[in-house]
């Protein structure tokens, strides 16, 4: 969509209430902030949107609280790790996950919010998969939570496609020359989950122990799983 006019963050807004204020509460005790600390410009703009939309009944404050709670405390890479561990432990589940991830995840009680589809891609000795979102920062939230800063950076978004091996090297990952690197570009509709290869020495571990080996980056494809016995 062609944006018409750009709203410069804070343009014309953050000039009036500036730094030092005359003592509004002259009787107050002597610390530096007799009044409440003024939040940052973006914080005030978010509050403004929130109160306007709440007053109009367009959003429910309880729903906002529930979303924040979910992404700060409940959803994160431990969910994806559980899925990968099950795929390692159960060949039937692995096949189902790769064939139709949405159905396999739903059976585990994991589902998305925006109607997006999850596609699971498995690493093999021949192919290493890596995920990026070149448009913005599409990411499998229900499986991995909120993306790390580097996933959202221009450097990663631009270089992951152009020079994936160099990016992997920055992450400390060096792959065999004959292993192809395949980069998947996430969209609003399709989010990718990398199923890394099960590390050597993990035979006999149960699913919980296997999940502890699955790092977030290994599910984005910028890392490899831990080996049993290595430091977290």
């Amino acid at each position, binding site marked *: 969509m062609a944006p018409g006019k750009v709203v410069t963050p804070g343009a014309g807004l953050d000039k009036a209430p500036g730094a030092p204020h005359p003592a509004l509460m002259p009787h107050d005790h002597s610390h530096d902030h007799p009044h409440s600390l*003024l939040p940052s410009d973006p914080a005030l703009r978010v509050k403004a949107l929130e109160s306007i939309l709440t007053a109009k009944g367009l959003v429910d404050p309880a729903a*906002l609280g529930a979303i924040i709670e979910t992404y700060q405390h409940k959803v994160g890479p431990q969910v994806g790790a559980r899925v990968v561990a099950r795929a390692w432990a159960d060949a039937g589940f692995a096949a189902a996950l790769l064939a139709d991830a949405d159905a396999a995840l739903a059976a585990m009680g994991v589902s998305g919010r925006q109607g997006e589809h999850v596609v699971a891609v498995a690493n093999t000795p021949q192919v290493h998969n890596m995920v990026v979102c070149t448009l913005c920062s599409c990411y499998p939230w229900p499986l991995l939570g909120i993306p790390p*800063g580097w996933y959202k950076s221009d450097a990663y978004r631009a270089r992951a496609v152009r020079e994936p091996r160099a990016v992997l090297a920055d992450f400390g990952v060096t792959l065999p020359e004959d292993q192809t690197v395949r980069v998947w570009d996430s969209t609003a509709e399709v989010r990718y989950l990398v199923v890394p290869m099960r590390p050597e020495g993990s035979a006999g571990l149960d699913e919980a122990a296997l999940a502890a080996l699955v790092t977030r980056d290994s599910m984005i494809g910028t890392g490899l799983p831990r080996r049993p016995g290595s430091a977290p």
Partner: protein
Amino acid sequence: MSAPATPHPVTGFDEPWQAELFALTVALSEAGHFGWPDWTRAFGATLARHRAARELDGGADYHAAWLETLEVLLDRAGLARRDEAARMRERWAAAYLATPHGQPVRLGG
């Protein structure tokens, strides 16, 4: 809910307003005010425009672009006009400055 069995770091938000902004956007989309593909297209356009000016590191600049995108979308949709949002921002600023430290901040009339 029991503690996760694995020590996976959870990426959170650097500041509370970033979490509130994220929740607001998700809630609006879930309520049907815009589709998520519409959101990603608009956000992608903002990011591309910002990127033309300087390289984005995925931190504060990313969230600033997100906020800008939501403000434009809401203004265009008539759900929160730009002037309305600017006035409300000033009311909140005034409320903070008029509220003694440590007390809950509420909007004045």
